């Protein structure tokens, strides 16, 4: 396959590109979903293609083709150069690429059981049927379960001489129970609303113990219909690690994407409240806030060997002791703020242009625990499992809803509360974080559905997180 990638690069160079790179990708994908003991959807996808980027002057062009032949690859390279020339009609300032070492490398993720090759389809289906049965048996009228699996092989070649092949296996699953009342529905998910995904094999799904958790979520969904509404007040808020993963994703992960900071996403995904001139000095949160973007964490969904520009995976400090110190960047964005590429540029397939993407943007553990947070709170609310998420185009003003909450009174959990929501402004919220869970509560949450870009691309991101406590938070917005 390197021959095809090389042919695409050569086609672009022959057509006038000063730099070119190409990816050949072959992706096997499976999604299966069941509802109330019936497998409703089983889709298997086999996708192959070549995507090539060409740079002429300061202008990029990209062309893809599903045809895996040397002639098609070369044509794609030539056409990428033609697209770059058209870009030059509305050109920007001179463009500098961050240096990238020339690499000849092979990398593969680790797995114990390959989800497609080592586990039978029947077994995968039986699990979903059984778990939805267990939810239904516990009284929930709607029981759902699903899994997704990706097996991705890619071969990268650049005009600078890099040749990298990678093989990634990713998978995960989710179950949920929905209870239906007169005027509303209540849902409980496990292990989170987006499930749990990782760059791992089927052992990840086995470890989740979906069937063991099915009765609990069914009972909680029904109990929520009878629970009192989350009050509208300002109070101490404790968040479980799944909701913290969403909080990190939305109010840190997207805000630190350098392409957003530079205005490259202004019309769609939006920009960022962060000003690169404040990198290294701006207070993002309290002293307890330590965030990294670490693409080297074994098994986390945002881990890989090399990004789609051929830059090695890295661990980068983003927030250190509450101060903003890092961004997510690529080869054409990093030099604009006098940095080297962080190796964070990826595409969701051969037919899409690589762009800045979160790797594993996570909160480092502190020294507390969920139990200690509850015990130390006289009056507050504990929320967990994301239900809704909305944030402004600068990633500043957010309103998030959770599936479930409990009162915290005098150091103990009290009544269950339904429809919990909370709202805030990013840096004020993070500045109020006064307790952070410890290493034994650190979970590498994976989000397999991060949308960004035009045409929309779906990215896989990781969010290691722990429970945390915040003070003076407005909750119960309706």
């Amino acid at each position: 396959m390197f021959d095809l990638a090389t042919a695409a690069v050569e086609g672009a160079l022959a057509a006038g590109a000063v730099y070119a790179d190409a990816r050949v990708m072959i992706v096997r994908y499976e999604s299966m979903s069941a509802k109330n003991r019936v497998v409703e959807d089983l889709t298997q996808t086999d996708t192959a293609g070549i995507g090539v980027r060409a740079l002429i002057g300061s202008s990029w062009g990209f062309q893809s083709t599903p045809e895996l032949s040397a002639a098609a690859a070369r044509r794609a390279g030539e056409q990428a150069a033609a697209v770059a020339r058209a870009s030059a009609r509305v050109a920007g300032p001179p463009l500098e690429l961050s240096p990238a070492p020339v690499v000849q490398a092979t990398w593969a993720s680790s797995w114990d059981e390959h989800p497609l090759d080592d586990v039978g389809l029947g077994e995968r289906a039986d699990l979903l049927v059984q778990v939805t049965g267990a939810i239904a048996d516990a009284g929930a009228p709607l029981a759902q379960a699903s899994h997704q699996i990706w097996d991705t092989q890619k071969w990268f070649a650049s005009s600078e001489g890099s040749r990298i092949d990678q093989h990634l296996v990713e998978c995960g699953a989710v179950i949920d129970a929905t209870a239906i009342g007169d005027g509303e529905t209540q849902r409980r998910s496990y292990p989170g609303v987006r499930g749990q995904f990782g760059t791992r094999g089927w052992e990840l799904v086995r470890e989740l113990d979906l069937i063991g958790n099915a009765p609990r979520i069914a009972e909680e969904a029904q109990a929520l219909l009878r629970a009192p509404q989350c009050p509208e007040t300002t109070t101490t808020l404790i968040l479980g690690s799944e909701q913290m993963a969403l909080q990190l994703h939305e109010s840190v992960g997207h805000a630190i994407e350098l392409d957003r900071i530079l205005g490259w996403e202004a019309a769609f995904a939006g920009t960022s409240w962060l000003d690169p001139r404040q990198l290294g000095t701006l207070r993002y949160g309290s002293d307890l806030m330590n965030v990294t973007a670490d693409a080297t964490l074994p098994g986390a969904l945002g881990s890989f060997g090399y990004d789609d520009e051929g830059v090695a995976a890295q661990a980068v400090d983003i927030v250190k002791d509450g101060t903003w110190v890092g961004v997510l960047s690529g080869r054409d964005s990093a030099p604009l703020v006098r940095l080297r590429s962080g190796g964070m540029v990826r595409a969701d397939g051969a037919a899409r242009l690589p762009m800045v993407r979160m790797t594993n943007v996570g909160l480092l553990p502190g020294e507390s625990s969920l139990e200690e947070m509850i015990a130390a709170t006289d009056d507050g609310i504990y929320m967990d499992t994301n239900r809704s998420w909305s944030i402004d185009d600068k990633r500043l003003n957010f309103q998030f809803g959770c599936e479930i909450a409990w009162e915290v009174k005098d150091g103990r959990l009290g009544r269950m509360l339904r429809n919990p929501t909370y709202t805030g402004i990013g840096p004020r919220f993070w500045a109020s974080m006064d307790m952070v869970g410890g290493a034994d509560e650190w979970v590498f949450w994976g989000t397999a559905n991060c949308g960004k870009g035009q045409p929309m691309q779906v990215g896989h991101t990781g969010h290691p997180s722990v429970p945390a406590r915040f003070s003076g938070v407005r909750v119960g917005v309706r």
Partner: protein
Amino acid sequence: MAAWDHADDAGAQRCFAVCDQVVALVGDRAEAVVTRTTGRSALTRFANSRIHQNMDGEEDHVRLRVVVDGGRSAQATTTRTDRTGLERLVEGAIAAARLRPVDPDFPGLAAPAPVVELDHYDEAVVAASPDARASVVADFVATGTGLESAGYCSTEGGVHALVSTTGHRCASRTTMAQVDGIHRAVLDGGHPADGYAQITSSRLNDLDGRRAGEIAAQKARAGTDPISLEPGSYEVVLEAKAVAALLLFPAWLGFNGKAHAEGTSFVHLGEAQFDERIDLWDDATDPRALGRSYDAEGTPKRRIDLVRRGVTVGLAHDRRSAALAGVEPTGSSIGSEAFGGYPSDLFLGGGDVSPEQLVAGVARGLLVTDLWYNRILDPKTQVVTGLTRNGLFLIEGGEVVAPVQNLRYTQSVVAALGPGRVLGVGDDAQLVGNEGGIAHVPSLRLAAWSFTGNAQG
């Protein structure tokens, strides 16, 4: 548009040839529906008033759904259309289907049925060069002297064919061209003000980058130095883009026949759930629409009335949800029985009042260009939260008097459109591309909209 006969179209015949090959490979081992999609998708993106991302791609994929034993089904997709790739597709799908439990509610595949040969198609869109898209972008950017611009120009389209073992054969071709962008007025130390415009059409010639740019620039310049308003309930005039955003969740989770059967939809058929000014329907056969003439299962598209003079009257069904409900399928399958039916060519009936007259009727309220990052809290109540974007203005005494900083809202969409709540419907109905699809909608004047937060939180 002129009628199109797929029998005379070489692209359609190439699609049929591969579909027929797949059906032959399936043989008598399974029932099957095969589709092939070929075409081109290109998008030229600009930001900071320059083209920064520019992609063009060929598309070619084959999708196969097989059913064995009268109810064990699986579907598979491939981009590999050589014989080896197609054999792998067929063998994999049949093997997967055999391992699945029987679906007791499997409704059978669509029988042959006449399909209206729509032609939401313009060859110039498929053939559009990178230079053609760059010209549209250049025209948009040129209207923003002193402003920063961002957005995209896209061209996409192609041919689709469907063949099934029931003998059903149909083909369709569609195109879509869009220019979508903002101009941003940047003030020293102040809030940047964005103005927005979009043109969506099946025809390339309709993409007037200058016209779109002028609308966006005018709005950006009018939005500088915005005031801050306290959250609360305000009368609103929602422009078409905001209306399209508002309709996403009722369409996705409400008029979905499967969601209705499961009890998670807000829909009560036969009840006056909406204001009598609201007429809502789905119709790919309308010349203004962009969709195909049949759905993912091959069911022919037709007009489906969803709301008639405020009364909820219809649902969107795929074959399975229709069978469960005891009605005919409506041609609303998106290829996922787990999801159900979706009205993908939505129309909200227009009125006879100009957008300016809608504003003129407001004593005190807000003019909303767009609603952004909208997320539903509960499908049954249809309470949604999101933010305003790309132009928010205070109306007093029937006139726009000041730009306003963006606000967060939390509002039941169905309640906002409920009886007595729609005070006016604009005569500006237009195609609008939005998260979740394309809708043909006008501006609306609504009695109340609940804003629950401002820039201060």
